[in-house]
């Protein structure tokens, strides 16, 4: 991908965010929650993008296990980092919304909040695992397996509101019995599109960083090998005799 394409995607993402912000702030206050409901337009896309990002990590890891092509390992790693970022945003915005509406930032007994927090820490662990293994192939294999296994949390987090009794509200958008107001749905979808573009922009930059890091790692490995090689001299019988 060319430098110009990176910039064009980033600029498009910024414009989309501005459009999303305009849509979010111009909807009328919600009947019960008032202005506080507007936090949903950034909270919900953050959570959905986190799910998407961890899905990409799983797919990237699975493709790497089959093809052993480095690019898929980079895509998986990049998406995990961006996914952790979006999960953090979802947690923070959820807390900011929860305090005025529920009266608390956090509820330790809530299945949605706790499962999301656990998911966040598992993927932080995924990133830590990657940093702890120096060999590229071992790192890619182990993180691919973790990326596939860890994805089981995504449906668990999503269905936690229907599987358990939670303070967190149940599914709102996909609910035929009580459909969301069209104006709210429009603002939500515009912000979802904007957040998806931001995800794509972050992914291109983060994958590029991963490629550069791999190249640097390779260069340093060659330099280290040459350094070790220069320290070893060819065995000489003559020199050995002189020592005796």
């Amino acid at each position: 991908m060319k430098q110009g394409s990176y910039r064009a995607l980033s600029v498009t993402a910024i414009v989309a965010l501005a459009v999303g912000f305009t849509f979010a702030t111009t909807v009328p206050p919600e009947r019960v929650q008032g202005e506080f409901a507007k936090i949903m337009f950034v909270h919900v896309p953050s959570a959905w993008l986190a799910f998407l990002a961890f899905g990409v990590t799983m797919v990237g890891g699975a493709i790497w296990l089959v093809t052993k092509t480095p690019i898929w390992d980079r895509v998986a790693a990049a998406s995990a980092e961006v996914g952790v970022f979006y999960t953090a945003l979802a947690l923070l915005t959820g807390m900011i919304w929860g305090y005025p509406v529920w009266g608390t930032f956090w509820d330790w007994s809530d299945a949605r909040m706790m499962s999301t927090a656990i998911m966040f820490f598992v993927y932080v662990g995924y990133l830590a695992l990657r940093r702890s293994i120096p060999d590229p192939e071992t790192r890619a294999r182990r993180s691919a397996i973790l990326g596939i296994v860890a994805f089981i949390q995504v449906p668990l987090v999503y269905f936690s509101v229907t599987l358990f009794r939670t303070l967190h509200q149940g599914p709102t958008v996909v609910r035929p019995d009580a459909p969301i107001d069209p104006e709210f749905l429009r603002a939500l979808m515009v912000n979802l599109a904007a957040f998806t573009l931001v995800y794509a922009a972050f992914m291109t930059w983060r994958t590029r960083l991963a490629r550069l890091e791999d190249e640097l790692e390779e260069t340093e490995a060659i330099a280290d090998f040459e350094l070790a090689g220069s320290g070893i001299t060819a065995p000489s019988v003559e020199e050995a005799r002189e020592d005796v």
Partner: protein
Amino acid sequence: MSDGWVVFGYSVVYGFMILYAASLVMRIRRVKRRMEE
């Protein structure tokens, strides 16, 4: 109170997006500099 709280929520989101984007740019620059050395 509600307006300020919503502004705070949006500031957190956009603020962290700017910080993460800046961190990516800085990390790319640092790796490039190390490659040149």
